[in-house]
């Protein structure tokens, strides 16, 4: 459950933001999660929602944007989508580091992110009025 550590870090950042902006209510946070991470959307959302109950950011929505992986190869100058391996048991293709161009080892250039992209907020009085 490393999602819990990640959700805790996220909440800490948002509380920090809320404390510095006492006149604003956070309504949504958008997070980018890359394909090469091993972070599960549903678990991250569950951890987030569990942590924020009773907090000033309670009720805020976590939106997860999945970022597809991209690899680059120094052997053949390929750059683009990774080769997918369908050998995994649950049938979900797994992004690999085998270069789709030449079969040598490629490196990840995109898809390792786990980052807050943006925070959406509104003035408290509006938030209270539409609650």
């Amino acid at each position: 459950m490393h999602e819990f550590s990640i959700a805790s870090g996220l909440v800490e950042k948002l509380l920090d933001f809320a404390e510095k902006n006492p006149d604003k209510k956070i309504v949504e946070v958008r997070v980018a999660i890359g394909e090469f991470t091993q972070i599960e959307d549903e678990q991250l959302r569950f951890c987030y929602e569990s942590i924020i109950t009773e907090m000033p950011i309670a009720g805020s929505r976590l939106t997860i944007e999945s970022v597809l992986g991209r690899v680059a190869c120094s052997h053949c100058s390929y750059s683009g989508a990774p080769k997918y391996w369908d050998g995994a048991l649950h049938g979900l293709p797994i992004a690999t580091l085998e270069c789709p161009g030449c079969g040598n080892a490629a490196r990840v250039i995109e898809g390792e992110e786990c980052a807050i992209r943006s925070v959406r907020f509104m003035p408290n009085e509006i938030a209270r009025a539409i609650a």
Partner: protein
Amino acid sequence: MAELGAPQVMLEASPDEIYDIELEHSLLEANAKLATENRALLDQSGITAIDFMGAIGSGKTTLITKLVGMLKDKIGVAVFNGDATTSNDADAISKQNVPVVQIATINGCHLDANLVGKGLKKIDLGNLKMIFIENIGNLICPAEFPLGSKARVVVVSVTEGPWMVRKHPHMFLGSQVVVINKIDLAGAMEVSVDQLIADVHALKPDIKVIPTSCKTGAGLNEVAETLLAV
């Protein structure tokens, strides 16, 4: 007249009352920064740290104990043992008379760079050349948390069945060495070591794979040589 159940007054925040700010803040950054600091301290001290990851029972502790036994008369070696609760593994390795740091994560599922950094402050780095870090027995969570080691080793064993690599692909992508352990039991387990090697290479063609048996000693010299050369 308003429809049944619909509110009489609708008040919506207009677009100019909703604000978006771009933050671009990495959630893994805090750990990554500490890992970089650990690495700088290790490099400055002339120490190579190796992080061992793998399932409970894959043989991480036994492998590390064997490696310590082979290396301790030649170079200064220390071991960090991550465990959720017990100190069983640290106690076992302590018999080798090398510095051992027990890191209890108290049910945490992975070691992180902060815990390893604290461990580095507890021992005398002066005479050390190598630190083996045994991560928590878990093939998922540690992948996201670099510790500052120079190489990450995944230990799988044939007793875990034929699908270990396919079931936990991410762990291998970020590692440099894979040890396939307990090969003396491959026949009894009816697990193909060659298939496990092929699975690893399907994920990452340039990863070093070393089949071992801590019982017969097969492959252990190659592991030691590989880790000394990283």
